[in-house]
């Protein structure tokens, strides 16, 4: 039964990927002029035979369905094309930057979940208290603030005025730290961008935990636990909080797409050398293959993450509907 569910989810992930590739293909052909025009433009050279040769070389003279098929089979083999600007394989450029983005996003996700669950649990214990309304007010504000601007404000406060953290980059340039010193250096650099990304999600995790805990606290098994004479602390932690956390798993999956979008912006504020700064460079350099490659890769990453959270959910909560 569980295998069937996982299989179905796997097919869905593949379908999402296929749709993303289809959209990319459509976008390439929606732009006026084809790759040959762009390359000829960059070579400063637009003679008809040269263009015709280029088109033949890249199969641009083939009918659209043939081109689509070629595009799909290339992407399936990990060939995302060549960067217009850097003249390198798009996939290898992306792979070089990906670990940095995964590090930042992973850090932000853990920070947001830990902080949000703690805040939500505090708020749920006494609904309507000062702590509870503080959490609600803060989350309203974080929903309304542009994330990139929040990052800039944190830079102004903690890097420019207080000087506590470095304002940009992933490590101190030219310091060439190794081993533990390097880890400590990266840790100092990740705090500000990580907190910027995490704050928005922390607010939503807090709200969600709060609602879920208040809901769970009303259920019969909690009353039973209390009636058995288990201490309030135990009831809060083992019975209420644990069960309230289950929906958070699905939520983490749903939020992954927003997290990636946010990190594109936050990376640019902090010059974090990941996929977000790469996307900005691609926009500036009109490097369409690179930009599309980033879209395809991030979409696949997010749908894989969704697959994982769905499977985790089905394991953690046996009540989940299989099928």
């Amino acid at each position: 039964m569980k295998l069937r569910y996982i299989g179905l989810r796997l097919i869905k992930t593949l379908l999402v990927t296929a749709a993303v590739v289809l959209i990319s293909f459509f976008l390439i052909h929606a732009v006026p002029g084809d790759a040959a025009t762009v390359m000829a433009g960059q070579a400063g050279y637009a003679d008809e035979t040269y263009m015709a040769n280029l088109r033949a070389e890249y199969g641009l003279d083939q009918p659209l369905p043939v081109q689509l098929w070629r595009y799909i089979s290339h992407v399936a083999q990990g060939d995302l094309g060549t960067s217009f600007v850097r003249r390198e394989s798009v996939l290898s450029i992306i792979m070089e930057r990906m670990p940095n983005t995964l590090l930042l996003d992973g850090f932000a996700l853990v920070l947001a979940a830990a902080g949000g669950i703690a805040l939500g649990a505090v708020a749920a214990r006494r609904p309507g208290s000062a702590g509870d309304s503080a959490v609600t007010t803060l989350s309203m504000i974080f929903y309304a603030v542009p994330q990139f601007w929040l990052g800039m404000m944190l830079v102004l406060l903690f890097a420019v005025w207080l000087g506590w953290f470095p304002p940009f980059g992933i490590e101190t340039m030219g310091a060439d730290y190794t081993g533990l010193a390097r880890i400590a250096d990266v840790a100092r650099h990740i705090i500000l961008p990580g907190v910027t990304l995490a704050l928005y999600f922390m607010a939503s995790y807090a709200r969600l935990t709060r609602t879920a805990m208040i809901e769970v606290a009303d259920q019969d098994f909690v009353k039973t636990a209390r009636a058995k004479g288990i201490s309030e602390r135990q009831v809060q932690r083992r019975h209420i909080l644990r069960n309230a956390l289950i929906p958070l798993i699905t939520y983490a999956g749903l939020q992954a797409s927003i997290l990636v979008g946010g990190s594109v912006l936050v990376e640019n504020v902090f010059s974090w050398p990941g996929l977000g700064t790469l996307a900005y460079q691609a926009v500036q350099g009109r490097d369409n293959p690179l930009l599309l490659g980033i879209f395809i890769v991030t979409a696949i990453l997010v749908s894989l993450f969704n697959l994982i959270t769905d499977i985790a959910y089905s394991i953690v909560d046996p009540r989940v509907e299989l099928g």
Partner: protein
Amino acid sequence: MNFAARFLSRTTSVIGFAVFTLIVVIALAAPIFAAHGPMAIVGLPLLPPGSPGLLAGSDVIGRDMAVGLAYGARISLLIGITSTCCAVGLGVLLGAVAGYYGGLVDDLLMQVTEFFQIIPSFVLAMVLVAFLQPSLSSTVIGITLITWPQVARVVRGQFLSLRSREFVEAARVLGMSDARIIFTQVLPNALPPIVVVSSMIVGNAILTESALSFLGLGDPDLLSWGTMIGASRVAMWVAWWTTVLPGLCIMVTVLALNFIGDGLNDALNPRRRG
């Protein structure tokens, strides 16, 4: 209590409504009060707020920040409202058809909306705007594309629960066409949640627009709040007002819209208060 009284009974919704009205007035009146356009260079760069004739200082190339902020409100509201209208139009149409007919059409639409939830939609909007060339209309297209599924889901849910109600059956018996039933019978009853979602979407659209402009994907001929923040990045360290002020404008506008949304939610769903 009627609708208006319920809406006005919440302090935050009143504040939100008042602030939003003020922003609309500033946006509309900008050309009347400003002696020059937002792109005009009026003095030395990076003059602090309160300098002679410069209420909010000047920016990196010596443009009047106060005029820029007022004109920025026009762009933000224009894009926010236009793309919300497009997204709501598309979402209502598709959501209504899916919810009313159900079956295969419904399954298909749900898959499509789920797809938009899974993929990083901001990146899609970025790619789309970059490919179409940055302009007012490509920003609106980009935001509409990533927003309509939210509306469609809400509308579909409403239609699904309303379609088997007695008044709809009655309309069918009277021989009304499907299109007439959808637009004159079901839609008016499905409006409250659509109104609430729309007010939230305007705020989100303004945030997305500012993010796109910040990355240099705004209309190059227009000065929006996001463009102002993006352009002043280099000056942030020496001239805080160039980044702080446009960001505050975005925050206040979106906060006001969200307060209005919460107020509408309470006023339109009195039973779900709390």
